[in-house]
């Protein structure tokens, strides 16, 4: 079946031109904007990273919706031991590169000491910024990936950072 967006003989730019010429803008009720922004602070907060989350963690559509819903409920998170402020574990899909997964909020400015990865790790940043001593810096939507045997230390930027972490065993290196 033809997709609706294909069922027009006109280009998107031409349709936009037609709309702008023929449609008088109408102010929507303020409740629409308020409701929209409330959803952005709730279950849709991490929606812009949905494709990356599905990709890294091998999540189904339903799995992603479930994760985003759980992430929006503060009672689903567990308080952590500094520098972890809180975390929320979830199960990655069978094709994910490592066996464990979680959302983790790390304290601003903290440093995770040098460690070596016994299994692959992917750190997908959702909020804030993290960097490592290999010169990699990642902001929202960006990833830091570590192969088996790789070693690094991680530093959190000036704000708390929330990351989606796909991980396995690590061991700390000497201080």
């Amino acid at each position: 079946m033809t997709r609706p967006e294909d069922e027009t003989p006109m280009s998107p730019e031409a349709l936009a031109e037609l709309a702008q010429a023929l449609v008088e803008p109408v102010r929507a009720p303020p409740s629409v904007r308020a409701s929209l922004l409330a959803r952005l602070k709730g279950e849709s907060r991490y929606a812009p990273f949905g494709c990356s989350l599905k990709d890294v963690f091998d999540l189904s559509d339903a799995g992603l919706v479930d994760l985003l819903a759980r992430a929006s409920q503060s009672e689903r998170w567990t308080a952590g031991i500094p520098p972890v402020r809180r975390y929320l574990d979830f199960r990655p899909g069978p094709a994910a590169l490592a066996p464990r997964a979680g959302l983790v909020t790390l304290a601003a400015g903290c440093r995770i000491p040098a460690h070596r990865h016994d299994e692959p790790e992917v750190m997908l940043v959702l909020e804030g910024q993290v960097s490592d001593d290999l010169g990699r810096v990642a902001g929202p939507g960006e990833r830091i990936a570590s192969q088996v045997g790789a070693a690094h230390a991680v530093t959190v930027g000036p704000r708390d950072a929330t990351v989606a972490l796909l991980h396995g065993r690590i061991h700390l290196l000497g201080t």
Partner: protein
Amino acid sequence: VTAARTEDEAKDGADDARLLSRMARGENEALAELYDRHAGLLYGLLLKLLRDAKDAEDALQDVFLGAWQDAARFDPERGSGVAWLVMRARSGALDRLRRAGVRRAEALPDADALPALERQSPEERLAVRAALAELPEDVGTVLLQTYFLGRTAREIAAELGVPEGTVRSRLARGLAILAVGLDER
């Protein structure tokens, strides 16, 4: 005047692209700003397509939630932000009409592309805009129903409660006015 308007459009387009790029990084302030820039046009469009305020409000929210979710897929090389949003509004309106059981034609509408709107030069775009601004509202309604919803003259006639011939003549008038607008440049 043409150069100034073209510059304004280029700036608006660049601003939209920047906002969408910020949305892809999860900045909800950017979505609020994009909403403030375009919600009026999209809500007006959805009201005309859906003819129901509650449906239009829900569809408007869906347009921006979808844009929030898919912002990383927006490619400014492939088109403008406003066109991207207008297509989302159109697609959402079609989905709602389909769910509501409003019949749609299997075939394409009783009109071909509007070549006047596909022209690229700034002078031509301004001439077409001037012609569109002169269109009577009943003609504009027929153009929107034809090109946004893919409706045939018969379907539009049923929707508006007017004879099919009236719809055909309004469509013909719209196309003629657009053609004259171009010829008079």
